[in-house]
């Protein structure tokens, strides 16, 4: 995996017209080919940061770099930027506008000015990818929330972006649907080497599907690092109004309050099983002695 930064912000500051400071000097590198979770409470600036990556919000000061080049906010520059950096919004109803699935997915491609045959080919590939082939001709308002979410994702993936921004991809989905969409994104990322940034509150999903995490609070980045270091930085995470995953919390309580002597930490079920197996082996050895 390459460790160069795909996107990078330098002293990024953005203030809404009503005076609310959304981003307050954000310094953040986003590594290429990695899935980065953007964590933070409501109003921490996650969505504003995503919109800055896409060139929708222009920073009041500071800058955003894509592959080391500052963003070009000219019409032409923005067109290229938005093809390369795609964003899927939290609410699919805010994103889908066309009257059928097919048309909506074709929208971004038509805007790229591709020839019709290429557009058709890519629309069909995208529908196949997100599993919507059966719904081609369905009007959008007859789809379920989860299906709409897939259409929204398909419309962005069809543009073949190298960076995918996802705002709360699991919000409003049932556990199976949420798990399905995250697995899909992870697999896609692995096979295409895409850089993915996920703004989320879904803390259980983060250690399962992400490589890195970034904690935001009131427009600032408190920490950015590998998922493995999440446990160490639990105080920081709590300061931002978030929490550890349930498993990590359990392990923490077992070691700090109940006096268990555990080897290492765990944030997911599989990691916890490893620790417990180690414990069991130790007991068995002690028992036979």
């Amino acid at each position: 995996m390459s460790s160069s930064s795909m996107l990078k912000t330098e002293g990024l500051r953005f203030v809404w017209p009503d005076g609310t400071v959304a981003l307050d000097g954000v310094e953040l590198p986003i590594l290429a080919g990695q899935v980065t979770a953007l964590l933070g409470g409501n109003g921490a600036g996650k969505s504003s940061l995503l919109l800055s990556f896409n060139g929708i919000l222009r920073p009041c000061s500071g800058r955003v770099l894509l592959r080391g080049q500052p963003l070009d906010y000219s019409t032409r520059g923005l067109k290229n930027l938005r093809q390369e950096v795609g964003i899927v919004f939290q609410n699919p109803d805010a994103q889908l506008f066309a009257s059928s699935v097919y048309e909506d997915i074709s929208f971004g491609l038509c805007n790229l000015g591709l020839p019709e045959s290429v557009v058709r080919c890519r629309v069909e590939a995208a529908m196949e990818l997100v599993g919507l082939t059966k719904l081609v001709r369905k009007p959008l308002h007859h789809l379920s929330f989860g299906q709409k979410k897939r259409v929204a994702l398909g419309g962005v993936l069809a543009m073949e972006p190298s960076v995918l921004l996802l705002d709360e991809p699991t919000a409003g989905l049932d556990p199976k649907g949420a798990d399905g969409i995250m697995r899909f994104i992870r697999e896609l990322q692995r096979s295409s080497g895409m850089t993915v940034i996920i703004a989320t509150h879904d803390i259980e999903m983060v250690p399962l599907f992400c490589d890195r995490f970034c904690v935001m609070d009131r427009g600032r980045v408190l920490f950015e690092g590998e998922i493995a270091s999440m446990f160490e930085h639990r105080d920081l995470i709590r300061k931002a109004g978030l929490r550890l995953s349930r498993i990590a919390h359990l392990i923490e309580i077992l070691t700090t309050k109940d006096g268990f002597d555990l080897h290492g930490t765990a944030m997911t079920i599989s990691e916890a099983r490893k620790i417990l197996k180690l414990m069991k082996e130790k007991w068995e050895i002690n028992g036979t002695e």
Partner: protein
Amino acid sequence: MTLDEHAARSRLRDVAPGFKLLYALPPMAMVLWADSVLFSLLVFALMSAALMLKGGARPTDYLRWLLLPAGFLVIGTAAAAVDASASPEAFVVSAPVGGASIGITSAGVEMAAHLCFRALALVSCLYFIAFTTPVADLGRAMASVGLPPLLVEMTLLVYRFVFLLFGTASEMATAQRSRLGYTGAASSYRALSALASNLFVFSARRAEELYVAMECRGYDGSIRVLAPSSEARQQSLAGLALLEAALLSAAIATHSGRLF
């Protein structure tokens, strides 16, 4: 089930929308011009048969939808049948009111019958289109005959967002009802005004979100999308022309011969 769902399920959905319009629109003009009960009935029968036998719409569904304009039809035609005059001789049935009398004349009945069947025939033509053609297809047909793209885009956007607005309005109304809105006249007015103003704010916010989302996919002022490659079945145009010609001659016959 909404008309939209009927259209999406219709067996005639894949027939080119232009063809369906050519089938249903000229008879509308003929019905208006011929002004004959017999011809109106003929068109009504033709449209209803096509929609149920070819399109596969269930008769009960169709009947339920026909009842919708029936209310207006009855009130409207009843008003046409009733007349007022100073002399009671002109009426078939009449009741004296003050110096004059109000009642039903035979000319009034005839006019009412004409009106009623004409309206019924026109409704059946429109229902034929509504039951077999999704709005999106209609929009594409509009674009292909050269209507301004702005108009077509607006139509399709309104179509998409009407459902969203409708859904939101009914959710808001449910929330209001669960907190005892709409219990009396005063509370109804208050709740309705709150609903309307909230919907307005909601629409404005939604419009902005949509604009941002569209910008993210490279929107530059004109909406360009590709319709699914049309697998539209092209029916024989000659057959259609023959049918329309036959209808036209029937219209002329009934109009000039005054069959009824």
